[in-house]
């Protein structure tokens, strides 16, 4: 089982709050743009859900 992560980049404002919840999945690059991995191990689900919860723009969906 894997967790599928999708960030709506039209909504994302690159605040990077998600990075503090799941730093192995979400990261701001040197230019301050959000980078993320689209698929993560099931064991990471709770932290990824937390990242989606704390996104100010509510741009993250998790499947």
């Amino acid at each position, binding site marked *: 089982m894997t967790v599928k992560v999708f960030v709506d980049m039209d909504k994302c*404002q*690159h*605040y*990077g*709050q998600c*990075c*503090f919840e799941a730093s192995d999945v979400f990261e*701001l*690059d*040197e*230019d*301050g743009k959000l980078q993320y991995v689209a698929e993560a191990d099931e064991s990471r689900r709770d932290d990824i*859900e937390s990242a*989606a*919860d*704390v996104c*100010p723009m*509510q741009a993250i*969906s998790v499947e």
Partner: protein
Amino acid sequence: MSSVVIVGAGLGGLRAAEALRANGFTGTITVVGDEVHLPYNRPPLSKEALAGGVDVPGLEFRRKASIEDVDWRLGSAAVSSDLAERTVTLADGTTLAFDGLVVASGIRPRRLPIPGPQEGRHVLRTAADAHAVRDRLRPGTHVLIMGAGFIGCETAATARALGAEVAIVAIDEQPMVRPLGAELGAGMRRRHEEHGVRFHLGHSIDSFVGDDHVQVAVLSDGTELPADVVIEAVGSVANVEWLAGNDLDLSDGLLTDSAMQVATSSAPVVAVGDIARHPNALFGSVARRIEHWNMPTETGRRAGATLAALLAGDEPDRGPFCAMPSFWSDQYHHKLQSFGMPGIADRIELVEGSVDGPCIVEYHDASGLVGVVGVDRTQELAPYRKQLAARAG
């Protein structure tokens, strides 16, 4: 089966419901909301939703599958409660019984009593408020904003983008001065002025003039400003009235302990979000209300866990509450972001850049670094946040 009533259908109420389920509570959950909407995201109401139209379903929060069975009682505010009897009464006359109560009724905008016509005076808290303002923001319209905090400044930026003429009247010396300090506040003022916003700082409004609709605002120094639309963003009042008569500390919101529990001899009661005056071990023992967007989620998680434990007959985790306060703001594509509590600092230091450009500002008190604010330097704030989190000791 035990039952929980959550008063408040905003982000805090939603997160408390999810946390109750996540912590094993299987009883019934009823959420009471004064608005007709399911929990939705408010920050866009002063920004993109104000500029582009208010689509409430599009602003709704994702609701976890675990709370599919929640009973939403929307469109009727709680008006009274009897904690000893374990009941809450709604405006429509319904009385709900509970075994545990979550206070998530939030805040409302403060209104100042100012003589003159009242028509044309707006606030910006709910989708309905934003909808009413949105229809009146047109090119050339004279918009007068009372208050130079975040909501006032964001609204000013949005109104300028829509072509309105914008004036801000505030008693403060600089915009957003309490969280940012005078120097960065002045930098933000200059950004607004470059975009054509006119500030009248150090002033209040004595009266409004007009027939049945505000046309002119008269300031404390006698200045008269045209005002087709007045938007009032002068702070907030906690929605505690429905809790009166229960011998609670309602002096500034509702006082809780570090587990978000309210001291009462009757039913288990927790509070979350803007209304909860809670201690945060990162910043000493003082209990504070923190009206930042991330706090309903943080306090909701803790409160849900506490209430689930209490209703199961277990002792909740009463360890320190150490959530990191954070705010952000978007004005003319400039991004402010903060961690910690810059507002409690007594020494402010610009450590990177200039307050008129991308910058990082540190906020200190006798205990050390208490907050950081970055403007257009978001990706560089992580080490500061880490340093602030280490205050937990």
